[in-house]
């Protein structure tokens, strides 16, 4: 059991480290006048959501474990009964399981910040992610991760393709619809202000994602090993897929393309990590990289300003990965796969159907709930900063700071 604990301890640390990684991944892409605001939103997600998770979020998500239902209840409010003993049939202390899951509850809303970059009020952001965490994230986590109705139905989600990526991607879509485009969007160029930060963030995300996916085995065993392998190769193959299309379409391979492709692969492999073999992971990754690259054009078509492409990467990547599992889930890898995927020997469409249902429901629920929530906040305190603030930049206006000082001599 110590080995399992050791691995989940480590995995928790790894996943927590992803949120700063995400901050820099996004932060390098915004304009320098909004760099700190982006970092702030991500770091603040740790502060707020960790505390909310203790107070009530965990209880909503993981109360009444395995009830096949919709809502965990309030039995563990304030972490009542969450101690160092092992329950829930897991080989690790409850408090460790709660810590591991906490890091997922933190990063999921933080993913949204890429879509809303450069124009969302900090106060509105804080209220939104707090409420969304309790009203959307925790319930969905219950449905999927805590033996709720989606899990009972038979859909699989190893580490959060639906709970994390589809969920956050749909919320991002809702906020983009409510916020409107950045001032100057489409007219002025808004290239990334400093890609090295984005690459650093990519490195940290890649590293942390091993905890995210292989840690989701909640044990140091063969499934964790396979999940780790898949988390290594899928982003690698996705990088190749993205760069290939980039090269074919645009004659160049870009650093940001390599980074974006890798992240697309991480997203897509998330639901599949502990359920598929290595070669399928390579295939899933490669296709995800290519697909997410193509999905970049969606926002132009529908006329949305999804500033840093949360839809193309997280929503599309999450949907693709969730559905791909219906093709590749393999009982030889993980006995928890009761219905093999369509392309696996003995497979059928049973799982695929479940996967599609789960993906669509989570997407729809999150979209609608986020629209309502966002609209309420917009009416009450306003979602968007005023024009002057946007011109001057959020760092100076909202946080009275500058990312880079002048003449610090």
């Amino acid at each position, binding site marked *: 059991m110590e080995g399992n604990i050791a691995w989940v301890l480590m995995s928790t640390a790894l996943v927590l480290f992803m949120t700063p990684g995400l901050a820099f991944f996004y932060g390098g892409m915004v304009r320098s006048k909004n760099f700190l605001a982006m970092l702030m939103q991500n770091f603040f997600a740790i502060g707020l959501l960790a505390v909310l998770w203790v107070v009530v979020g965990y209880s909503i998500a993981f109360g009444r474990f395995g009830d096949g239902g919709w809502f965990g209840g309030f039995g563990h409010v304030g972490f009542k009964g969450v101690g160092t003993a092992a329950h829930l049939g897991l080989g690790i202390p409850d408090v460790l399981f709660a810590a591991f899951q906490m890091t997922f509850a933190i990063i999921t809303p933080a993913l949204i910040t890429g879509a809303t970059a450069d124009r969302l009020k900090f106060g509105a952001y804080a209220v939104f992610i707090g409420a969304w965490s309790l009203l959307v994230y925790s319930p969905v986590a219950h449905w999927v991760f805590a033996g709720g109705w989606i899990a009972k139905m038979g859909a699989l989600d190893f580490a959060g393709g639906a709970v994390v990526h589809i969920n956050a991607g749909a919320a991002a879509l809702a906020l983009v619809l409510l916020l409107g485009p950045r001032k*100057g969007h489409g*007219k*002025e*160029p808004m290239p990334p202000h400093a890609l090295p930060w984005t690459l650093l963030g990519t490195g940290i995300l890649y590293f942390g994602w091993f905890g995210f996916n292989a840690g989701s085995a909640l044990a140091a065993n063969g499934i964790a090993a396979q999940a780790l392998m898949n988390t290594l190769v899928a982003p690698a193959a996705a990088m190749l897929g993205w760069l290939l299309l980039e090269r074919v379409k645009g004659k160049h391979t870009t650093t940001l393309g390599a980074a974006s492709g890798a992240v697309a692969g991480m997203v897509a492999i998330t639901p599949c990590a502990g359920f598929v073999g290595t070669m399928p992971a390579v295939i899933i990754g490669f296709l995800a990289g290519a697909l997410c690259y193509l999905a970049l054009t969606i926002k132009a078509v529908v006329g949305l300003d999804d500033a840093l492409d949360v839809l193309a990467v997280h929503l599309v990547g999450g949907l693709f990965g969730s559905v791909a599992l219906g093709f590749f889930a393999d009982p030889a890898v993980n006995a928890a796969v009761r219905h093999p995927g369509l392309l696996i020997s003995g497979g059928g469409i049973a799982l695929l159907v479940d996967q599609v249902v789960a993906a669509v429901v989570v997407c729809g629920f999150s979209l609608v709930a986020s629209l309502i929530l966002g609209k309420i906040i917009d009416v009450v305190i306003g979602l968007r900063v005023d024009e002057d603030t946007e*011109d001057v930049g959020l760092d*100076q206006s909202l946080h*009275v*700071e*500058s990312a880079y000082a*002048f*003449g610090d001599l």
Partner: protein
Amino acid sequence: MKLITAVVKPFRLDEVKAALKDAGIAGITVGEVQGFGRQSGHTEVYRGTEYQIDFVPKIRLEVLASDEQVEQLVDVISAAARTGKIGDGKIWVTPVEQVLRIRTGEQGPDAI
């Protein structure tokens, strides 16, 4: 020949550049500077300590122009840079005695 120097708000640079292009200007040299003026700067706070930041980021443009163009270009820059709010910046014109295009060695108005 004259040198027109303008100090403008950074987020107006694209407008100014476009307007100068439309006015047929062949080149501009720009740099990032900091301005101190009536626009009062701002306060930054680090660990509870307030810092009065007097300097505001500005863009400084230089445009070489023939004597005839000057008036028009000053107007063009001014119109494109204006927001009407304090801190819009200045334009000034100085005499230039000689201009040379390095590539060709051309001199005078042709070199602009």
